[in-house]
Each structure stands twice: as C-alpha cells, then as structure tokens.
C-alpha cells in the first residue's frame, strides 16, 4: 500500500553523497585540470545514457556520475581524445548500458574502462593520487556503510586483510591512496560486488589479498594500475563468492531442518 523511496535513483544519490568527501578532496587538490577532466567524463557518460534512453527507452541513472568521477580520478594521464572517447564509450556501453543499465550490470563500468585503457594503451602513465585522498576515503567508507549503500562487511574485510598484511611485513604505504580510493569507488559498488553476507566478507578479503600479492610481486606497476587490476579480478570473482556462500547456507539449513 504505502511506498518507500529507496528505488534505484535514491540509492545512486546516496552513493554520490557518500563519495562526496573523496570527490571534493580530489577537486581541491587537482584544481581546474581536475574539474575539466571530470566534466569531460560526465559529458561522455551522460551522452551515452541519453542515447540509450532515446533509442532503447532505458532510463538514465545518476550512477553515471559515480562512473565519471572514478574515471576522472583514476584514468591514465596524457591519453589522446580519441583514446579517451573510445575507452570510456566501451566501458559505459558494453559494461553497463548493454546489460540494461545500472543495477543489471555484472562489472562496474569504470573498472572495465580502466582495464581497457590499461590493456589498450600500456604506455600511458597512470596518475599519482595526492596523499590526502586516503584520509578522505575513510569518511566516504563510513558514510557508505551508515547509509547502507556500501557493504560494511566488505569494507571491514578489506581493511582487516590489509592491516594484517602490513603487520606481516608488506609495505603498502606508497599505494595507500590508490588502494583506498579503488576500494570505495570500484570494489564497494553495491551492484558489482557480492550480495550475500559471507560473500561480502570474502569479497573484501579477496581484494585485500590481491592487493597484497600485487604489491609484493608486481614491482614495475604503478599503484593505480595494480589496484585497478585487483578490483577487476575481485569483481569477476564476486558471483563465485556468492554462489559459495549460498551453498554453505543451504547446507547448514539442510543439516538443521533435514
């Protein structure tokens, strides 16, 4: 009878609100250049959303802004206009819109775009994130968990794994801004991450483990590059983690109720 307000767009707005600390910090650090980059990605992603609305009657989503923010922050520097257009279009269209829009996608469109850029233009230098960003990621993660749009289990799982790894001797300090920003922007995306309780813990732990492995063994990679690769691998494994968690749940239930 009575209807609530937590439809897809409300969740997108809350996700944006949670990411606001990160976005503002980054804009303050980057100045006009950063703002222009953000506007460019907003225009490209927005244009594709409108095209799909007109051609396929698929309502656009404010989550496109999250994608644009992630791309503006993490995309390699000095890519030509054509390369940027091509890879952004590939990510937004193939990874999100072709599946039916935000909520039906399997992978985060920003993750796919960044992976595409990494594979397609390996010579382009990855950006260095300012160090204050990882402080901004903490309120973002807290807000996301409190508003319920990011999984607290996933964030905690990742944090605990990374803390454990650094206690055991892994040196994460150089990559810290990239690790935390990738975590809140790409990995904690509610759609592209695991959706069961246990699956989310595993999802966070897996991200932490991939990061630790890459930091230890992939020495010539830029911090953003190895974080994006870890995010991509984690997203790909998310359905598997869900399936495993579900099997365990079913087995436990079978044991209890016969």
């Amino acid at each position, binding site marked *: *009878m009575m209807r609530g*307000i937590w439809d897809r767009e409300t969740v997108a707005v809350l996700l944006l609100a949670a990411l606001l600390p990160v976005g503002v910090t980054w804009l303050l650090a980057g100045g006009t250049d950063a703002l222009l980059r953000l506007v460019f990605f907003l225009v490209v992603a927005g244009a594709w959303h409108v095209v799909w609305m007109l051609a396929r009657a698929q309502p656009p989503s404010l989550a496109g802004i999250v994608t644009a923010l992630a791309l503006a922050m993490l995309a390699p520097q000095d890519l030509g206009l054509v390369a940027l257009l091509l890879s952004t279009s590939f990510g937004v269209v193939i990874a999100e819109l072709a599946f039916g829009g935000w909520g039906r996608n399997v992978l985060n469109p920003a993750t796919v775009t960044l992976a595409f850029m990494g594979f397609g233009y390996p010579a382009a230098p990855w950006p260095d994130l300012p160090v204050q960003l990882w402080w901004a990621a903490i309120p973002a993660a807290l807000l996301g968990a409190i508003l319920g749009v990011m999984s607290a289990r996933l964030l905690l799982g990742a944090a605990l794994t990374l803390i454990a790894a650094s206690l055991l001797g892994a040196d994460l300090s150089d990559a810290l801004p990239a690790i935390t920003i990738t975590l809140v922007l790409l990995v904690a995306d509610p*759609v592209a991450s695991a959706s*069961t309780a246990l699956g989310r813990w595993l999802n966070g732990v897996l991200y932490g483990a991939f990061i630790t492995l890459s930091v230890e063994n992939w020495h010539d990679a830029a911090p953003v590059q190895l974080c994006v690769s870890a995010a991509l691998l984690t997203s790909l494994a998310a359905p598997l983690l869900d399936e495993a968690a579900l099997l365990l749940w079913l087995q436990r239930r079978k044991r209890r109720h016969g």
Partner: protein
Amino acid sequence: MGNLWARGLSVPVLPAPREAEIAERITEEAALTAELSDDLRIDPLVAEGAMVAQGAPLFRLHRQPEIVVTAPMAARVARLDLAPGRRLRDITLFREKGEGRHRHALPGDLRATLLASGLWTAFRSRPFGRHPAPGEIPAAIFVMAADTRPGAPDPRLALAGRAEAFARGMAALATLTERLILCQSPGDPLVDPSDRLTVLTLPGLHPHGLPGMQIHRHFPARPEARTWDIAAEEVAALGTLLETGHLPETRLVTVTGTALREGATFRCQPWADLRALSRGLVRPGPHRHVSGSVLDGREARWLRPRDRQVSVMPPASRDDDRHWFLSALRGARRPLPLIPTAALEQALGGDIPTMPLLRALSTGDAEAAIRLGALSLLPEDLTLADYVTCSEPRLSRLLAGLLARIEAEEAA
C-alpha cells in the same frame, strides 16, 4: 536506516494508536466479501432475512462441508449475495442485539469443535497460506503473540486478563501437533515451555513479528510437512470456547494511518465496518480505508477475517500528465532493477539470502525459490521489501504468482 548490524527496520506510522483507553465499538453492520477469483463456494445455512445469534453457523464451505463459518454478532442477515455456482460475493449482517449468543455443543473432539465453531479458518497453513484442509495434520503450529507491523495492536494487550483461557487454548493446540511454537514479544513468558511447546522471544523490529519469518527460520514449511500459524488472540478464543461454549464477541483492533487526527484502539467484532471504526478520527478531506497495515493491507470496506488493524490513508496521488521526456527520465516500461542495500537486506530479517531469493522471484525460477525457502513465505512477508525498494512489479505479487504456479503444479 541508521544501525549497521541491527536486524529489521522500523516504519513510522503517525499517529500512533492510543492504547491507554480501549473502547468497545461494535459496528451496526458487518460483512464478509469475496472476490469472484477467490472462488469461495458456499452452502448457506441461513436465509436472507433470518435472525442469527452471535457465533451461530452462517454457511458451510461447499468443497469442504466440515468447515463452518459463524456469525460475528447477533444480527439479521440483510443480504446474501451469491454469484452463479454458489460463489459468495458478500454476506451482510445488520445488528440485532436481542438475538443473544449461540452456545456451541462441545463434542469432546477438538478438531470437530474447531471446525463447527468457525475457529478453523483462523489457522493458516503453509505452503500457500490457505486455511488447512479438515483432515490435515500440521508438522508444527506457530502461535503469534507478537506483531511488529507498523501500528499493530500489542497481542499482550489482547491477552490481558485472559491468561487462563490462553493457557487452556495452548494446551488444546498441543494435542493437534508434535511441535507447538509460541512467538512472543520481549517480556515475561506467556506460558511455561514444555517438551512440546517452545517459546521464542522475538526482537521488536519488523519483519520479525511476521509468522513467515519465524517459520522460514525455525521450521520451514514443505508440502508434506505443513506448518500452521494462528494469532494468540484466537488461541484465547479457543480457550474461552472450550470452557463456556461461547465465542468471544470482540477482537482487539487498532485504527491508524496518515489521514487520521489521532489513532485509537477498539474492541470490535470481526468483519466490522471500517467507516464506523474510524468515525470521529478522520481528518477532513478524501481518504481510503485499508484493512490491515499500511504495508500489507488491502483497500476494503469491511475488516477482513484475519486482520487486526485498520489504516486510513489519503488517496494515492496520480501524476500521469507529465511530459514524455520527464517520464522517460524517471522510468520505462521495463522496471528498474533492485540495488542490494543494507535496507533491503534488513527488510527480509537479515537471515534469508535476500538478493538470490529476489532474483529467483523476478526471473520466475520456482526451483531456486523453493530451495531458498519461498514455500515458508507468503506475499505479506515481502511487503516490507516492497515498501523499502518501491519496486515495480511488487515483490509480494511476484511471490503470489510463483506460489500459485507451484500450487497448480503440485495439484496436477
């Protein structure tokens, strides 16, 4: 939405029902209506215009003639409207105080007493949520002495002063089944647990006070091991019936909703007139009456047999004169997908794997839904998820469709 690890949600409904003073309000008219799609075929036991005492038999079900439905008040049968095939459209009663109360003969057999007194239909049998067949043996009975729906009456209030009748009713129910489970709100135990009787204390947040959540968690229903649930007040009614032969005249009902100046709690008869119940409480302006809570109720003129609350709400707003471009920005023919959030997880109590279940429902995957326990659930159990997500088509309707399909396959 605030708490990270809390389970369940609180849905505010203003104004709250006042429980300090409980007036008795027996409405002058009472009726039972049925949709043609309900296919409720009956054999009337009274004619139009006949006088009936409170609790006297009104009709039998045509397909299950053992099951009798009785009059909620002393009345004259004002209208008995049957569609072709003896399908009930509605039966309306006008109150006649002088007719007194019908005293049921107690044959000693509990099942026969329940069937003949009309209390049988207070049970609900899962899977599928119909009243049980006359010969059905339940694997477990859940007695619900907790109700977390927004604005629902406190079952402890309904049982106040009737502890003895409730205990007698529970003792009688224990002879029907191996497992009797009492679900109660936090506080003193209402009865003492024994080897057949388990007492569960539920957290106070919705949806934990729905029987479906408890059945899913503690005793999943299967077609070959059916689980019944019944409201605690009906168990007390059974206790009273077994002692005196009379059915209680009233039940505890709250009146809440956003179109009211103030909420209220009444003792009224079943099938009561919702307009008469809300008289003097409604704000000026258009409004609609809902039998049931704001989440799972249905627009109605009369209190439906299992409902214990009335919601009065402003009419649904219509905004279909927007420009096509603005409408296209907001939604399309194809519904918007669900985003897994903490709110959605809490809306199913936190134990059920929410997204796998909802995905199985929206793709119509009966096998996966059954594996995840959909047979223990009824559409009312998903109404909180509907409220939270504003999802279209409604999840509760998807579940209703899926259950109907499974039932048809089961019967074939």
